């Protein structure tokens, strides 16, 4: 039974996109994945509007003081099993990390399963990252 659920989870990922004070660059690249060129719905990946429906949290941006508690809330609102993917250079520490309002790398706030670096990462890199996460599940 558990294997059946895991098999299904790998083929139907619902993605919730959390913008944690990003510059909108990674966010646009994420939307590229849904366009006709890449079309990740072929693999059952769908963007959803509520963290309660999600399996994957895509986090973009350098986390600042304002967003950090909300980010923790969104993480707790997501039902298990869940995966956190950090998109871009920002969540793993960057030129903004010494700024007065940046709380620091994302994994200080919530556990991260995989980092996909790049400013912004290419859509192909994101797909490759998701495939690596699926192998881990």
């Amino acid at each position, binding site marked *: 039974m*558990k294997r*059946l*659920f*895991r098999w*299904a*989870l790998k*083929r*139907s990922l619902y993605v919730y996109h959390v913008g944690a004070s990003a510059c909108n660059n990674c966010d646009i690249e994420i939307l590229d994945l849904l*366009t*006709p060129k890449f*079309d990740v*719905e*072929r693999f*059952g990946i769908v963007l*959803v*509007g*509520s963290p*309660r*429906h999600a*399996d994957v949290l895509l986090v973009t941006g350098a986390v600042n003081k304002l967003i950090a508690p909300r980010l923790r809330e969104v993480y707790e*609102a997501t*039902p*298990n*099993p869940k995966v956190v993917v950090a998109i871009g250079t920002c969540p793993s520490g960057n030129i903004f990390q010494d700024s007065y309002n940046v709380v620091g790398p994302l994994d200080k706030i919530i556990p991260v399963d995989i980092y996909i670096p790049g400013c912004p990462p290419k859509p192909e890199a994101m797909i490759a990252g998701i495939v690596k996460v699926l192998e881990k599940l």
Partner: protein
Amino acid sequence: MFDILEVLFLYLVFPGFLFSAVVGLLSCWVDRKVTAKVQWRVGPPMLQPFIDIIKLLGKEVILPRGAYKFSFFFFPLLGLAGITLVSTMLWIFNVFPDKTFIGDLIVVLYLLMLPPLSLILAGFASKNPLATLGASREMKLMLSYELPFILAIFTIVAKSHSLLMGNMVTVQSTQGMYLLSASGIIAFIVALICIQAKLGFVPFDIADAEQEIAGGIIIEFSGALLAIYKLTKAIMLFVLPVFLITLFLGGINVFTLWGIAQFILKYVIILTLIVVIKNTNPRLRIDQALRFFWGKVTVLAVIAMVLALVGW
């Protein structure tokens, strides 16, 4: 009448839950695939809706803080049970027209109201402000589409002079379908528009507008509850076209191969119409939807009613 085992089989396997869920989920795939094709994408594989349901059943179910436990878990199930009962009844009236009883059309109309009503209650029970907003929108939408929908259905009652669904099926099998008359085609168009709203498809997806209120009623649904919601929607996508076929397009003849082929053809045509309307229209505001239904659509339905009473 039927004995208890037969009733259980009819309700749970064929033509009840299992059958309508499988066909409904396949129709969901058709909907997603056609949508993808319209947008020049490839679209999901055929089994995608089934995989989604299995995955959701394996996920954690979260009860939000402050939500009403009983209503939150009970009402989605009630909606699913209601729509399954409609499916069972429709098929029984089509296959055995003599099993019909007085006022069965009214029972079916009430049961069709059950899924939106129970979703409204579940939305209020989840205590999320956005869900409350979605539920109140769904309520207004229901008030707006029920009037023309019932007028369109009662056009058929006026034409067949009876409230028996079995009777309508037998009359149509001898005298030709009701769609081929002037009042019939107008009433069919009205009913098709109302069904679009009943399904919550664009342009009437005001209640679960994903971009503005993040799913509306279903915002707090997780895991199995979301699976139940998706199943309800899938079965509705199957049952409502079958309802239209029963009333307007001459019912379903399952005893000959040609009859079954005809049914599949009619069903696919209605489904495609619904999906094409969905993909070529922007979302309306709730006040626009109300004005649309109580204005133009109701006028059309009244014209159909008058034509039917005159005898066209």
